[in-house]
Each structure stands twice: as C-alpha cells, then as structure tokens.
C-alpha cells in the first residue's frame, strides 16, 4: 500500500500546553514542532540524530527530536527552548549569554536543553562531567570552551538560587 501522505490526528503536550494537530505519519517530532507549531527554536542540523541541534526534553530527558515520529510521542511532556525562560531568562540561558558561549547560535538551543537535563541531576559537576554531558551536541563555532564555562557557571548560579528558596 502506498502510504505517501497518510495523515493522522495527534495530541502533543509541549511546554505545558496541549496541541491538536494533523501530521503526516512520517513527520518527526522536529517536523511537527517547527513546521506545524512554529516552534523554530528547535533547530534542524542533520535530521539523522548526529548533531544534537534538535534536542528537546521528553519527560525531562534530552532526546533528538529528529529521531522520533510525532505520532509516537503522544502523552509525553515535551519541553522546547521556547518553554525554558519564564518571566526572565533561565540561569543557564543567562550564563550562556554572559560567558560568550554563543556564536552563530545554531547549536545553542540544543546545548542549553542538554545542559538543563544534566544540571537537573548533577548540581556540582566538574569540567569533565560537563564535557561528557554535551558530547552529543556538535558546535562548529565556539570550540566548546565557553560553552563548558557557561554550564559550570550556570551550575553555581542554580546552587546559589536553591539556597535562597
């Protein structure tokens, strides 16, 4: 049977909002986010699970959204870069800006979400821990140094923040 163009209605939970959309069964989560919902903060670098630019959080875990079919993520909680900042920038975002961890910025949303998932579980990482955590995210511009520094800085901001609450 020719399944070209076969459509399916699905429900997606993204950044705490529920969306009802119709997708081609071949559409990935990344396709749905970018082309249907206009959440273009999630980047497409390879579409093959190799660069990490499309990283989003699924139930808190970083995943390559180009590697999952949209029809398969129903019922999961997805967070994209657009959902990270509340009223003000998240400490990780703030640290990326201030440490100069952003150049062209195309890898940045994926890096930040990877860092978010990592720092949720590891509050006091070493340089090596951070490098390990982001090893699935490629950056062609920065040379990684300032990204690592930003994540370490974010970790200490988050620790300080916690003490206050």
């Amino acid at each position, binding site marked *: 049977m020719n399944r070209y163009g076969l459509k399916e209605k699905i429900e997606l939970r993204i950044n705490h909002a529920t969306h009802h959309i119709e997708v081609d069964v071949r559409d990935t989560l990344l396709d749905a986010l970018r082309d249907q919902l206009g959440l273009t903060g999630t980047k497409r670098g390879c579409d093959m699970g190799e660069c990490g630019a499309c990283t989003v959080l699924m139930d808190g875990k970083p995943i390559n959204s180009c590697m999952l079919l949209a029809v398969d993520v129903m019922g999961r909680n997805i967070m994209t870069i657009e959902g990270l900042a509340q009223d003000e920038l998240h400490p990780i975002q703030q640290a990326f800006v201030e440490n100069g961890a952003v150049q062209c910025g195309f890898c940045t949303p994926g890096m930040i979400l990877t860092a978010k998932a990592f720092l949720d579980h590891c509050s006091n990482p070493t340089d090596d821990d951070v490098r390990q955590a982001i090893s699935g995210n490629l950056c062609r511009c920065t*040379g990684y140094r300032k990204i690592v520094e930003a994540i370490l800085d974010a970790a200490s901001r988050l620790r300080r923040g916690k003490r206050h609450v």
Partner: protein
Amino acid sequence: MSSWPSAQEAKVLGKRVTRLSGVDKVTGRAKYTYDIRLPGLLYGKILRCPYASAKILSVDTSKAEALPGVRAVVVVDENKTCRFVGDEVAAVAATSTDIAEDAIRLIEVEYDIGNYVVDEQTSMKPGAPKVHEDRENVRPGGVNEQGSIDDAFAEAAVTLEATYSTQVQTHMCLETHGHVVEWDGESMTVWASTQAVFGVRGSLADHFELPADQVRVITEHMGGGFGSKFGPGVEGVLAARLAKEAEAPVKLMLDRKEEFLAVGNRPSAIAEIRAAASKDGRLLAMDMKTYGTGGASGGAGFPLPYVYTVNNRRRQHSDVFINAGNARAMRAPGHPQASFIMESMMDELAYELGMDPLEFRRRNDPNEVRQGQYTVGAREIGWHRRNRNPREMKGTLRRGIGMGCGLWGGGGGKGTQARCTIHSDGTVEVVTGTQDLGTGIRTAIAIVAAEGLGLAPEQIHVRIGDSQPGLPSGGSGGSTTTASVTPVIKTAVDKARVQLLQWVAEEMEVEATALTVGDGKIFLADDLSRNLSWKEATSLLGTDMIVTEGEWDSNLRQSGVAGVQFAEVEVDLQTGQIQPIRIVAVQDCGLVVNRLTAESQVYSGVIQGLSWALLEDRIMDPSTGLMINPDMEYYKVTGSLDMPDIQVIMYDTHRKVTGLGEPPVIPTAGAIANAVFNATGLRFRSIPITPDKVLTAYKEANA
C-alpha cells in the same frame, strides 16, 4: 584623519561585551533562514545526480508534476553533464518536504553514465577518465623561480626530500545552505543563509535580469558559513525559479548529505619538496612541485613558501580536477595547507640540523611580531620541557611539544556605506548592509557607536543583514568585516556627535569644542557638573533628526596579522589515539573591539584546525565515485571531549582594527603534527593523523 581612542580613554571599546543577539539566540527567538515561515509556504527539494559522471539524455517530470501537493518542477539544464555525485539535476516545490521528496523520486532521468576519477593521483595519470571533455584533468601553472636552487643546494649542510599532503575538509556549518524566496510581481524577497547579503542580491538580480533594487536579501541570523556561503549557488537560483513558477514562496534548505557533497570544501594540497638549509640554520632553498584538487572545476592554490624567507626557490603548481564537489573559500583559504606543509618541513630540517626548532624558525622569520610571539608562546607552553631526542622516547603514552605559525591580511577595504541616525527621543540607529555570521559584528558596530556617543552598546539599535536600506557592504570573508565596517561606523558616528554637540552648545551657550560625551551625558569638559542627559540633549532636536553617513578611513585599520601556536599532545601507542593536551595560541589582532568575541574566534579557529589535523576527511570511494562519509557520524569533527586546554593570548600590537576570524585556524595542524613527532619520533607528512596511521608508523619504526 581619524584615530581610535587610547586604551585609557576607551569606555567600551576593547572591553568584554556580551553579544546583542545573545538573548534572542538562547531563547530560540532568533530567526534563521531555516526558521522563516510564510503563508502558503512551499518546500523545495533538489534532485541530484547519483553518478560521478553522467550526461543527461532526458528528464521526464510528468509523474512528479502529477503528484498531489506538487506545485512546481524545474530542470537545471536538459543538456547538463553532471560531474560529481550530487550535481544538481532538477528541483521540486511541494506543500510539504515529504511530498517534495516523494516527487523527486518520481522524476525520470535518463543518463549516459561516464567513467570517473575521484582522486588526484589517478586523475593525473595518462589515459585517466576526463572530468571535462574539453579540458585536461591537470591545469598546470607556470614555473616561478627566484635565485639559484643549484647553487644553494651545493652549499647546504642538510637537505630534505619529502612529500606533504593535506586532505579535503568540508565546512560543515550547523545551518545548512538555503533560501526562502517570495516573488511579488517582478520583485523578490530572499531570506538567505549567507555571508554576503549584497553578493546574493547581485547574483540573483543578474540571473533574473532584474534591477538590483528589485531583489531584497535578508539575513538576520545565520548558522555559520566559514567561506561556503558567498553567493546563492545553484540551490538559491533553483529556489527562486521554483517560487516564480509556483507563484508562491518557497523554502529550499539543503539536507546534511547535500552539504557534504555539493556546496564547498577546502581543496587538498600536496607538495613534493626538496629543501636545503645551511649549518648556521638558514633556510637556503626550496624546490617545489605542488598540486591539489578543488573538485570538478575548483582551483586548489595555496601560498608556498610560507612565512619564512627563502631566497632560492622554484615552484610549479597545478590544479587537478576530479569528479567530486567543488571547492569554495574556506576559513583562510590556502593558508592552513601552506602552514602544515611549511611547518612540518621546517621542523624536519631543524632536527636534521640538530638545532632547536624554535631557534631555526627565529633565524628565518623576518616578521618582528612573530619574533615577539615566539618568546611568549614558548614561555607559556614550557618549550624547555620538549623532548630533545624524540626518536629515543620510551613507553606507551608519550607526550611532546610542537609549534606552527601563520599570517593573514584582514585589513578590509572600501565599499561599505553606513548611516547613523539620532532621533529626538534619544534613539540611535546604525544601519549598514553587512551580516553577522556569528562572529559578532552586530555587537562590534554597537560598541563603536556607543564609544563615539558616550552610550552603552545596548542603547544602539543596529540594523544589519538586509539589503533594503540600500547601504551596501561587502561579503564577510577574508576576515575583512571588522576592518571594512567599523571605520565607516566610526566616521558616521563621529559626525553625528559633532552635530549633536552643536545643538547642545547653543543651548548651554558654550563652544561645541568644549563639550564631551560619556556615561549617557553631554558634559562641559572642564566643568563636569554642567551637563545634559542624552535624552535632554536629543530632545533639543525637536522635529529634526541627525542623519550622517560614514566613510572608510584607511588610517583606522591595518592589514597583516601574525600568529604562533604551540601544542602539547599525548600519543597512545597502543590505540594510536592522539590527545591534544594543551594549545597556546598567541594571536596578533590589532585593536580588539570586543574582547569576548575576539577570544571566541581564536578558540574556534584552534578547534577547527585541530579537527582538520586529526579527524576530518572527505573520503571518496574510487570504485563507485561516492563520498562514503557524507554525514556527521563518519565525517568526524571535534566534539566537546576532544577539546584540549586552550590558552588564548591576544597579542595587541597597535590600535587599528584588523580581522581575526580566519588567522587562528592556520597554525594548529602544523603545531600538532610537530608535537606528535616530538612525542614519538614518528613524522606524519600527511593529515589527518588518524590512529591507523599512528599504529602503522609505529609498527614500521619498530620492525
């Protein structure tokens, strides 16, 4: 003649300023070409030739056109000869990417498949398959000769005969090449992932025979170019043709595989060298036969000799064509190749002479800046720790230290127009037609304007990346952007300040020359208590505004930068892995506009140089003509785990702006290869130095 403020006077110039687009980029709000969405947008896809050499006999698009959702199909050229796998044949626009891909598969092309050749050596052999029917595979250049090679060799204490080579590298920008095109009658708006907004405008206007002002090109943000994104390319023209045919906007972004195959690379370089040096450590002569491939029709030039003085020399260079994607400019075109070759050779000669490799360089390097950098770099890396007898080292894990050098121009040039507008509500707008590749020129412009007006960079509204205001600027290449653009911004801003001070002088009843700006105020220079706030001052304009244009002032910039890098590596002789431990990059940079982004450029260059030295390689399969690693998994690039400790030393020698984007990528590979030798006594004359090469060489050395 204008000049930049001194380091003492400068308030923001040369400080660490976070980039203006930072918040947009970390929140996902920054819109790249890939992110442009328009009502009724169609998605484009290119059909590419699956053969390394094939003449198109016929193209039947009828089935593709009949597929529901397909809105336009265009053929590049019915009579085209495709010369590499990935050469463009046709393109489709459809209501979704999936449908466009389906449609591509329905296009029927009849090819006359030819013989092909995908490596330089085979291509140069007599009787090799011809890449072009009407040309030879080898395009030989003339012989360049100076001094007397034979006399020099006769007096030499040591001579060396060696062949060095560097591989093809691809740009691998994270955002692929692509365009979104929307026509409105005979005018088009193009969102382009480009490093030359005006270049794309000019090329598309030419192609469609339109007046340039009927093409508007917008590049608000772009995800890297590294030299590969200067023009619309075939893909941009196809996007525009599809949009015209479909009468709807079309987005055509390449996929990752297309990136590797078709939109540029750094050509290979091979140098067969005979060299001679005297007992007292002078490089006497170089006799060079060089060649390289830039693919099916690209050139493969590189400078040689490089950096050092060689009075007696002879060189003949040839470009070799093969059935592979064409070269495009890539970060410091030609220079990393030249540096790897020259620095490896220098190192070998020094060891032959029994001379400290650094001392040997000092004796042959005419550049004073680098002479100073040698001292700094050697101290920081701990040059005295290097191995004196690399061939006698023992153990499985071995460490060593090496070095390499580079030079670049980066002085920029005329051709940028810019406008500074001060509005009566205090808003300052600076507009020009340059674009930000990620280097941070947007922020540099704001810094220069802020410095001139006594404001903070965030207070400057910088509008770039759009051809619409009609203020041209050159492509961002050759590390020329800063030196081309900032002098024009400065002169525009200086004029605007002078005018504003006139208004304020009248109001305060003082001489305009007695006034100065700073901290968001206008002061009387010798009575700081008499001042107006910026807003009070600009409100004097009433219904007027100040509009000025700048000129390029060559006195504000300088060309010519030197750089030196020292590398320390650890080689594991059991696995063949090379782990760079530390790299010290001493980079001449002229006047630093923004220290934060300037340092970023150096880190970035070092990592790309490292990546090229150890990992990256476009591997072509001679039996099928295919690139066998057109993806980010098997085309290896440095990840966060490969990153060594990098020490960046900005070696400011003067207060004129100079470009910095390219030079730091130049010395790294040579420094690493020389460090590997220093660690193991194994000389690698060809990069990338992969573990298999290390293990093979080690085995042979111990056989």
